[in-house]
């Protein structure tokens, strides 16, 4: 259940209006508006270079905006940087733990950065090690940890100051499937505890799993914003038929296929056909004398939404 549909006017933790970031001639974030409510899990979905991380850094008060307005808990990051950063837990795209320190000491020194007392941090460490499932690794140096463990430690570290908003930039990029699922499980727990999550990802399964509400971004702009199910409903059909005829013939059949369903997308290796009844559609394709080498009927995903909105694939 998301905060957005449980109350009439949920409390806004982050409000952005016309937010813009330029680097010389390049516009990384192109005047976007958005709102993140308390206790919701809000995702920025888009390919690399869409402006997700730039937006995250502006929120985290570690990057100045070119123009527009943004407030985090009612504060402007350019005026109240340290205060805002004290409210946030930041999990960067690349782990920046201190490899020469033990797991426990990494948590300790990070807590000290916030000015927290030694006693407070010592108690907090026990809780965080249990949460990150790293109790047995407490005295191990970080350099000896696996990628998944490092990620969990980075998340635990971000929680040492008891932040209201946890920001995760591509949290599972580079992790194996098992490590990803462990991480998702941990993030779910935080969500249940009411921590507001802000996630960037270019993995649609991650966005579907973790986010109550998604903002699809491309080239610095917002393409759409809704719940994952809402986006699929709005921008795609219930089902998708994927057919492959071989690289040369995919384009050749495209015109004929186009007339048979709501919409098609011709990709280099396959054709996607959008319809609410794809089994029937497949029969029709075959009955017209076209015999795909392989075919697959599946439910629409955020990948289809993205393709529809931008004409491009999320992971390239």
């Amino acid at each position: 259940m998301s905060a957005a549909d449980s109350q009439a006017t949920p409390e806004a933790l982050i409000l952005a209006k016309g937010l813009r970031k330029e680097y010389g001639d390049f516009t990384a974030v192109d005047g976007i508006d958005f709102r993140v409510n308390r206790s919701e899990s809000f995702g920025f979905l888009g390919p690399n270079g869409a402006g997700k991380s730039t937006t995250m850094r502006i929120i985290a008060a570690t990057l100045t905006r070119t123009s527009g307005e943004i407030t985090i808990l009612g504060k402007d990051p350019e005026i109240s940087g340290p205060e805002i950063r004290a409210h946030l837990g930041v999990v960067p795209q690349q782990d920046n733990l201190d490899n020469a320190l033990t797991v426990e000491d990494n948590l300790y020194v990070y807590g000290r950065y916030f000015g927290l007392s030694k006693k407070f941090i010592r108690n907090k460490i026990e809780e965080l090690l249990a949460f990150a499932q790293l109790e047995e690794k407490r005295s191990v140096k970080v350099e000896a940890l696996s990628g998944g463990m490092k990620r969990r430690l980075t998340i635990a570290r971000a929680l040492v100051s008891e932040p209201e908003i946890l920001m995760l930039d591509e949290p599972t990029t580079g992790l194996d499937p098992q490590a990803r699922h462990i991480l998702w499980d941990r993030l779910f727990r935080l969500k249940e505890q009411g921590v507001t999550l802000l996630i960037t990802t270019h993995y649609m399964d991650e966005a579907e799993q973790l986010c109550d509400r998604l903002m699809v971004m491309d080239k610095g702009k917002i393409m759409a914003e809704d719940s994952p199910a809402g986006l699929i409903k709005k921008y795609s059909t219930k089902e998708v038929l994927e057919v492959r005829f071989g690289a040369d013939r995919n384009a050749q059949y495209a015109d004929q296929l186009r007339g048979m369903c709501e919409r098609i997308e011709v990709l280099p290796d396959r054709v996607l056909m959008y319809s609410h009844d794809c089994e029937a559609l497949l029969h029709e394709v075959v009955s017209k004398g076209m015999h795909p080498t392989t075919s697959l009927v599946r439910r629409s995903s955020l990948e289809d939404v993205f393709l529809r909105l931008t004409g491009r694939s999320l992971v390239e």
Partner: protein
Amino acid sequence: MRESSAVAIAEKLKGRFGEGTYSRRARVILEHRRIAFRQGHWIVVLSGFVEPVLYLLSFGYGVGKLVGKIQVTPGHWVTYAQFIAPALLATSAMNGAIYDSTWNIFFRLKYDGTYKAMLATSLGPLDVALGEIGWALLRGLIYAVGFTAIVFPLGIMKGWYGLLAIPAAVVIAFGFASIGMLYTTFAKSIAQMDWVNVIMLPLFLFSGSLYPLSIYPQWLRVIIEALPLWHGIQIVRSLSLGIIQWSLLWHFAYFVAMIAIGLTLTTRRLRVLFMR
């Protein structure tokens, strides 16, 4: 959710001078470095400390036998060992401060993401600059204290006020560490860091450490007198030989300027690199 104490701590600084730049917690960086050091390698630190002692033995007693006495001020003659020991102490302070503020900081800056992590918290860039420079300074101080501990009992330094050389070494190390970190924030590659080593040896050899500047032609003297190590050597030499002159103030002023410029610009660079 209850307001975390991290927020309350940050809010206390609201409206105070330097808010957003300095959270008055440089000490936590020192604490971090101390913890990392405890788990690291002492031998690396010791190696830097042994070097000046070897110089003193080789030059002070070897070359010293050939040279005889040296006149430092009109009518004031000292042994060669007494002449070079203060220079070696000043150089130790420089070396310790530079090793730590250049190479070590370079890796933290470039590869470990250390400062990115620090500046994502409620710390400000001046906390980071002051903490890191402070730690580098400590290494310079350790070298200076170690060197003094060996030299003082040998009677090379004159009287107890020779111990003033230690606080002087702090100032010298602070100056070099500030400029060292500033340089490092501009370095893009390891090759640029190698320049530090290229500069340090001649700086030591030609800054009036092993012989008085009076043997140089005027133009070369002017250049050397503009360089920081010469000022550092003058401070330590004056104090350890008990020559208290007004010119000491000028030498100190040189280091105060180094510290001020180094700290201010390093803080600005950290902001540009990680918060812009």
